[in-house]
């Protein structure tokens, strides 16, 4: 599966158009500082989108990913109260993510349940557990290092003043590169496509499909944990409704990125371009004082148009 295709070109053009339009209409948008700051509001969602992209390519889905994020943030809070250090806190988040993702994976692979139902169930379960434990309380007072991780720029930390790239965005890029290389340049990646395109044929050709599915659900939990560490650090507190509804945002990014919901098609390049487009779009509209709910309406319409357009074009070509 190629990483660079027609849809990726369309997205790149869209991204450039977006930058030009906002650059002209919003004074101050095209400065390095603003652009760097804009990445804060989509870096964590981008991490979720990477995991969701792999799952959808493989023919599965994880609606519980934002609820896992909440659970991981909760684990951070409790491990901090238990007196653990920064490593312990981060470790608690990662372990929670792996366990929660693994639970999804077990239900999907061992009991052969459709992942959409399983993760609707675990979405309620995980979010519900976070609500039960925290109620209407919140946990704050995290060690300084988490705030640095969530709010600082790489340049500040390594002592290069001009490098104003947020650490969150650097992490997103690193993970995107890693996931992209695995998906587009390794045998594992090709097998993920094969499983998504035709699970039965994949199984017949000797691919341990369930092992891949399980691994991808665990990976989704892990990404949720990384996002939880960054988000909790950035906002400095844990609430039960943290990252509420982000699963839909992440899925929108992935679908707009050209990943086919039925599996077997799509690329990480497209996903990342869609992450940038939606992230910058939201940020730019925010600068123009557009309310969040109207933005989500536009994004919803964009999602539908992005699916309808290619099909209409294809149909027109068939007519000619």
């Amino acid at each position, binding site marked *: 599966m190629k990483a660079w295709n027609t849809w990726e070109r369309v997205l790149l053009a869209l991204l450039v158009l977006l930058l030009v339009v906002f650059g002209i209409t919003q004074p101050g948008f095209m400065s390095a500082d603003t652009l760097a700051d804009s990445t804060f509001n989509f870096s964590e969602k981008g991490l979720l989108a990477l995991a969701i992209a792999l799952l959808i390519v493989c023919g599965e889905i994880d609606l519980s990913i934002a609820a896992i994020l909440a659970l991981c943030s909760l684990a951070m809070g409790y491990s901090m109260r238990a007196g653990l250090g920064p490593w312990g806190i981060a470790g608690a988040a990662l372990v929670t993510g792996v366990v929660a993702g693994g639970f999804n994976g077990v*239900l999907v692979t*061992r*009991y*052969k*349940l*459709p992942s*959409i*139902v*399983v993760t*609707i*169930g*675990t*979405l*309620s*379960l*995980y*979010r*519900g*557990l976070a*609500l*039960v434990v925290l*109620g209407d309380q919140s946990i704050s007072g995290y060690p300084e290092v988490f705030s640095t991780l969530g709010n600082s720029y790489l340049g500040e930390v390594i002592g290069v003043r001009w490098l104003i790239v947020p650490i969150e965005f650097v992490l997103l890029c690193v993970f995107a590169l890693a996931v992209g290389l695995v998906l587009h340049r390794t045998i594992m990646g090709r097998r993920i496509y094969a499983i998504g395109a035709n*699970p*039965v044929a994949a*199984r*017949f050709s000797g691919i341990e*499909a*369930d092992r891949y599915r399980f691994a991808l659900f665990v990976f989704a939990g892990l990404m949720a944990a990384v996002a939880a560490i960054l988000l909790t650090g950035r906002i400095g507190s844990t609430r*039960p409704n943290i990252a509420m*509804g982000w699963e*839909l945002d992440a*899925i*929108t990014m992935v*679908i707009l990125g050209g990943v086919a*919901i*039925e599996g077997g098609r799509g690329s990480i390049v497209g996903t990342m371009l869609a992450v940038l487009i939606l992230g910058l779009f939201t940020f730019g509209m925010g600068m123009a004082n557009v*309310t969040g*709910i*109207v*933005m*989500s*309406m*536009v*994004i*919803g*319409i964009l*999602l*539908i148009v992005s*699916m*309808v357009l290619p*099909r*209409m074009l294809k149909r027109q070509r068939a007519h000619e």
Partner: protein
Amino acid sequence: MKNLLTIRREWLLLGIIVVIALAVGARAPVFLTLRNGMDIANDSAILAILVMGQMMVLLTRGIDLSVASNLALTGMVCALVGKAFPGVNIVILIAIALAVGALLGSVNGWLITGFNLPPIVVTLGTLSAYRGAIFVASKGAWISDQDIHVAIKGLPREVWLGLPALVWFALIVLALSAVFLKLRKEGREIYALGGNPHAATYVGISVPSRLRLVYTLSGMLAGLAGLLWVGRYSIAYTELAAGYELTVVAACVIGGVSIGGGVGTVLGAALGVLFIGVVNGALPVIQVSPFWQQAISGAVILISVTVNSRSERRAGRQILERQGVLA
């Protein structure tokens, strides 16, 4: 054989509901009073209406995630109409609710069949789009108690023949759905195309028109639910019923409706609604934090799909299965 299994399953669910009700009643006798029963029925009525629409969609292997947004948008439209035209009566309002809901639902159906798009993505898109449209329509303002039309507020408080109007609405919708799915040709075709879309096409069922029908019906019921919701809680605002679509799907799944299509009954889905209603009603009575609601319904979804899957596992999906591992 299959019929036998589904019947057994429904009795099992009914048994569980009765056991929960009796257990809670033993600790707090107030739970088993008629009055409390009416409260639970009233609370479950709107969910039951939504579940009927969702069930028909699920039967065709689709899903309608936009129902809660549709509900809120239609509710807002009705509230705005009521505010702008004080002379409007309830029949016109119900007609508006059904029409607006059906229109929003048919947009889903049109996008899904016209462009051959996956339902989950289309309704995910309209979920956001409709939600945003509420904000645009209301300019972000809340329509609160004093501005809600008297007819809208009055409807859920009516009592006809000893039963609240909301319960009547739910019972009528349940009865019509049962008749539609059991006795009408279109209803049988919905089961057929959910069970096997290719075979359905071969026997001459027009799959696209049936799909458009179920999404329109689902939207229409969501619209009706929107009017009733706004009336019951006397308020309309942008975030109304946000996230409720998952509760609707949960009730279906608990009631034995298969996400894989073709399996599900009106009785089962109604019991799924009743289960959620009883659990939600029971928690405050036995002084368990209401925060448990969500976690419990999540756990119940997982348990019921695991139980369901045993009876409906498709053979031949996975080859080279080690014997005995899954038995």
